[in-house]
C-alpha cells in the first residue's frame, strides 16, 4: 500500500509536469526542452528554504513560482528569437545552464552533495508527513493545475496559442503580437512546473542536480508525446503509463535491476515507434 501511494505521488508530480509542458509544446508548438530547469528551480527553492530558513512549505511554493516566473520570462524572451529546431536546441541550452547552476552554486545548493532533510508541510493541523495525506494534497494541486490549464486552452487565448502553432506569421498579420502570447504561456507552464518541483522536493526529502538534467526534460516530453500533444488528459495518462512502466516491466518478469536499466531503452523505443506510427500520440490532436 505504501508503495502504491509512493507511485501515486510520483505520478501526480509528473502529471503536473506533463500538463504544464503540453501548454507550451502541444498547444503553442514551442518545442521546449527546458521544463526540468523550472521544475528544478521550484524544487531547489523549497529545499533551500525549508532546510536553511524558517520559511514554511507553502510560502516556499509561492517563492518558487515567483523565481521561476522571472527565470522563464528571461529565458522565454531569448527563445522567442528562435523557431522550430533552433528553439529546441536553444531551450536545451538553458536546461544545461540551469543544471550547471544547480551543480556549481555550492553555497546555495551544496552542488553534487544535494540537499537532504527537506521536511513535509503542515497545514490546518493536518500532518502531511503521512504519505496518504500528502498524496491528497498533491492530487488537489494537480486538480488545480489541470483545471487552470483546461480553462486556458478553452479560452480565446488558447485559440490564439493554437494559431501560433499553426502559422505564427499569419496570425500576426491579424493583429496579435505573438511574443506576449508565447511569453505568457511559457511562464504559466514554468510556474506550474515549479509547483510540481516544490512538492517533489518536499516528498522525496532529498534532491540533487541529477534530477533536473536534460534527460528529465526529455522524459517529460515523452510523457506528453505518448499521451498526445494538445490533449491534457493524454498528458495525465502518459504520466501514469511511464511511472508504471518499471512496474510493468517487473511484472512481465524482468528482475528489478534489469527493469530499471530497461526503462531508458523503452522510453527510446516508445518515442521511435510513436514517431513512426502515431506522431500525434495516443490521444493527441496535433502533429509536430
Amino acid at each position, binding site marked *: 500500500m505504501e508503495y502504491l501511494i509512493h507511485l501515486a505521488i510520483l505520478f501526480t508530480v509528473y502529471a503536473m509536469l506533463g500538463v504544464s509542458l503540453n501548454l507550451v509544446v502541444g498547444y503553442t508548438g514551442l518545442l521546449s526542452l527546458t521544463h526540468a530547469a523550472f521544475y528544478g528551480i521550484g524544487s531547489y527553492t523549497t529545499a533551500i528554504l525549508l532546510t536553511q530558513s524558517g520559511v514554511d512549505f507553502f510560502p516556499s511554493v509561492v517563492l518558487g513560482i515567483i523565481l521561476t516566473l522571472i527565470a522563464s520570462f528571461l529565458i522565454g524572451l531569448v527563445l522567442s528569437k528562435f523557431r522550430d529546431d533552433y528553439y529546441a536546441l536553444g531551450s536545451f541550452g538553458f536546461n544545461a545552464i540551469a543544471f550547471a547552476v544547480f551543480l556549481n552554486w555550492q553555497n546555495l545548493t551544496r552542488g553534487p552533495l544535494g540537499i537532504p532533510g527537506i521536511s513535509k508541510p503542515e497545514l490546518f493541523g493536518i500532518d502531511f508527513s503521512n504519505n496518504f495525506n500528502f498524496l491528497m494534497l498533491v492530487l488537489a494541486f494537480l486538480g488545480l493545475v489541470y483545471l487552470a490549464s483546461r480553462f486556458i486552452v478553452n479560452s480565446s487565448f488558447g*485559440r490564439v496559442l*493554437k494559431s501560433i502553432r499553426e502559422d505564427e506569421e499569419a496570425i*500576426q*498579420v*491579424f*493583429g*496579435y503580437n505573438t511574443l*506576449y502570447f508565447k511569453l505568457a504561456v511559457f511562464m504559466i507552464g514554468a510556474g506550474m512546473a515549479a509547483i510540481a518541483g516544490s512538492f517533489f522536493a518536499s516528498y522525496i526529502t532529498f534532491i540533487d542536480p541529477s534530477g533536473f538534467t536534460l534527460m528529465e526534460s526529455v522524459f517529460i516530453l515523452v510523457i506528453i508525446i505518448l499521451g498526445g500533444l494538445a490533449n491534457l488528459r493524454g498528458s495525465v495518462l502518459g504520466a501514469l503509463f511511464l511511472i508504471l512502466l518499471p512496474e510493468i516491466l517487473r511484472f512481465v518478469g524482468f528482475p528489478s535491476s534489469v527493469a530499471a536499466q530497461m526503462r531508458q531503452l523503452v522510453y527510446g523505443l516508445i518515442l521511435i515507434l510513436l514517431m513512426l506510427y502515431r506522431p500525434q500520440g495516443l490521444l493527441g490532436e496535433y502533429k509536430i
Partner: protein
Amino acid sequence: MNALEIKKLVKHFDGVYAVDNLSLAIEKGKIAAVIGPNGSGKTTLINLISGIVPIDSGVVIINGVGARAIKPYNVPAYGITRTFQEVRLFNQMTVIDNILVVLTERNVFGALFEKHSAHHLKRVEEVLIKVGLWEKRSALAQSLSYGQRKLLEIGRALAMDSEVFLLDEPFAGLFPEMLKIMVAAVKDLRASGKTVVLIEHNMDLIRELADHVVVLDSGKLLAEGKSEEVLSRPEVMEAYLGE
C-alpha cells in the same frame, strides 16, 4: 481620396530588386488590380505593406499617415487585411476557429478572460454562409479542398471588417462555382465602400472587376491607369507575352 499610397518603395533580396523605387496611389473604394509577369514583385509589394518583409526604403502612407517600418501585428490597426498567395490557414483548427480566432481580444489578459459574444458568433456565421462553408464549420481546415481553403481564407479576411483588402491571387485555380462566390465577395467589398488591391493574372477577371490597373515589371511600375486603357497598351501585353 487615397486609401493607400506608397512612395519610392524599395526591397531587394541579395541582388534581386523585387520592388524597385515604386510609387503608387490606390483610390479609396475602388478595386485596383496589380498585374505583371511572374517574379515582378506583386507579392513582395503586399508583403511590404503588411509588414511580412521589412521595407528597405521608402514609405507607405495609409489614410494620410506615413509608415517606414511596419510590424505585422499593427497591420489591422492601419485598417488593412490580407490573404496569401499560398493559402495560409490554421490547419489543425476547425473552420469556425479559423475565423473566430481573428475576432478575439488582442491582448493576453483580455483573450484569457474573454467571453465570446453572440455578436462574434453571428459574424462567423455570416461570413461562413457568405463563402459557402457553413456546412463545413466543424471540419478541420486541413480537411478542406483547395478551393474551400481559398474561400475560408477570404472569409477570415472578410471577418476583419477592414478598410483595405490586399488579395494575392484569390481566384487562382478555382473551379467556376467557387470562382463565382469569390468574385461576388470581392464585388461586395467594393459595394460596401472598401478598397481592394487585387493581384491577378486572368485578364477577363481584371476587365470585369478592376477600376484601376497597375502593371509591374521587375519591381518597377510599367504602366497604370483605367483598366481598359492600360490593358490595351502594347507594352503591357508585351511584358505579359514576354514572360
